[in-house]
């Protein structure tokens, strides 16, 4: 069951002294209980947006309401409605997980009688019960992120902000965190605003995705809608001999514009005629006498959406 109000943003701007507009007039709406993926490369304005929405940075212009409260005029009420795990797990390496929970539950004003139980419940929920008494300095990156998430939940927030929660984590830790975030939204009705630079994260978790680049939202919709906008699949061919890479690229170029290949040895093109052209591609490569080691057809991805909207690939974009 979704909790309360979501997030409403209109014309939000943040301009730094002597710098560019980190966020340049964005509009967005996140419905209660929704997981909203905010996708973009480093420096796109994701974290600045989160800092503004969590009241830690005043906006230069524009308005936003979070949980029904104005971020500029009702900061304390906003903070009471939200939980946040910001970029880099902000933890004290000298304190244990349990000590972090004690501090956080006390500062959020939980009654003394409930603090210990709430801390233990959340640590167990994120799989840290066994490590509760260990100092955080000895935790792995995944454990720190899970503790960060648990700390953000102590006061049962309606809305959760997660700023690149899985950056630097191994795939196992990443999946565990995804599961917990999905569960929070599905079972507890928590609205989740998640920034990420990982396409698969937005794809796997988000109900809707906003793509931000240079402070502007360049695309917004469900992952399926965004990919459908692009429509065209890509074909990638890897020649058996490295020397044939350029020849492969030339052949593929007949079927559509070049695309970023996922493998260094490969070449890729966006098929103008869609999947049905695959047989023609195979025949063309065969006619050129190029031995192919691997041939793959990729459905459109969010990276393709980013490429189409910005002219750059999200992977490695700065």
């Amino acid at each position, binding site marked *: 069951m979704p909790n309360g109000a979501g997030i409403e943003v209109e014309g939000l701007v943040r301009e730094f002294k002597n710098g560019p507009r980190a966020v340049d007039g964005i509009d967005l709406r996140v419905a209660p209980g929704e997981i909203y993926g905010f996708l973009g490369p480093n420096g796109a304005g994701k974290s600045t947006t989160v800092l503004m929405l*969590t*009241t*830690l*940075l*005043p906006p230069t212009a524009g308005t936003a309401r979070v949980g029904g409260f104005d*971020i*500029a*005029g009702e*900061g*304390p009420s*906003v*903070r*009471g409605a*939200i939980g*946040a795990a*910001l*970029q*880099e797990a*902000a*933890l*004290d390496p*000298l*304190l244990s997980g349990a*000590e972090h929970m*004690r*501090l*956080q539950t*006390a*500062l*959020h*004003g939980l009654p003394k009688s409930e603090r210990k139980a709430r801390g233990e419940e959340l640590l167990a929920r994120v799989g840290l019960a066994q490590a509760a008494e260990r*100092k955080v300095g000895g935790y792995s990156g995944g454990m720190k992120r899970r503790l960060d998430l648990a*700390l953000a939940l102590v006061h049962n927030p309606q809305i959760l902000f997660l700023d690149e929660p899985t950056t630097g984590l191994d795939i196992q830790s990443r999946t565990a965190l995804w599961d917990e975030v999905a569960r929070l939204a599905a079972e507890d009705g928590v609205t989740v605003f998640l920034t990420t630079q990982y396409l698969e994260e937005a794809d796997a978790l988000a109900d809707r995705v906003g793509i931000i680049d240079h402070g502007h939202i360049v695309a917004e919709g469900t992952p399926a809608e965004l990919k459908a906008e692009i429509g065209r699949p890509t074909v990638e061919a890897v020649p058996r001999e490295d020397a044939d890479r350029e020849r492969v690229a030339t052949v593929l170029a007949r079927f559509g514009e070049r695309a970023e290949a996922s493998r260094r040895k490969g070449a890729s093109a966006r098929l103008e005629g869609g999947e049905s052209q695959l047989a023609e591609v195979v025949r063309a490569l065969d006619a050129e006498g190029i031995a192919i080691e691997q041939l793959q057809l990729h459905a459109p991805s969010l990276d393709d959406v980013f490429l189409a909207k910005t002219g750059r690939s999200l992977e490695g974009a700065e």
Partner: protein
Amino acid sequence: MIGQVGEVARRSVQRTMRQPAQIVPSLVFPLFLLAVNSGGLQDATQLPGFPTDSYLTFALAVPFMQGALFSVMNAGTDMARDIETGFLNRLALTPLRGAALLGGLLAGAFVLGLVQAFTYLAVGLIAGAELATGVGGALVIIALSVTITVATGTFGLFAALRTGSGEAVQSLFPVFFVFLFISSMALPLDLIQTEWFHDIASLNPVSYLLQAFRSLLIEGWNLADLALGFAIAGAVLVIGMAAAATALKSRLVRT
């Protein structure tokens, strides 16, 4: 508010006690200098008008001041780390009040000040220093030492909040150290013959803090010296807290 101060204080004390690198140098370094100075400058007690025949007793006031200088670094470095790691943002997202944060953070400096004061006094007395005011004087020495330690700690907090950098905090240490050297650290004010040095040392509040300790160690109960010492320590505390509170307000721009 009191509960918030208590929780932040608890963390601050836990952090301090879990960092031997903060505690050990602040105990060893001042005591090492005390040993060297009291051994090498004993002949200074032969100067006419020197207040005691034990240079160790005279010099025992100095570690309390040196220990306070470590408090600048320790309190400031801890705060700078909280800023650098984002922990301050975590605290800012709770209903924590700024005053509670500062008060709580200084609890670590308070505990460190207590440990330092007990250690310096105990080691000094064991080594043969005199204490003219007895047990009551020992308690006042500890109280004054802790007040000074907490007061100087506020300047560490201020520097950290202004700059957000641990390196900037550490650069304060030599500045404060200079204040100690241009005071009556090595000789009583009235025995300093070099005019410019005497003038500077007379203007330096550190000289009067040292005199407050020395009055208890050497002379007996001198309320004027004590009142001046506590007044200076109190003024430093008030100024430092005000500066740190202003810097915290700028740092925490939460709406």
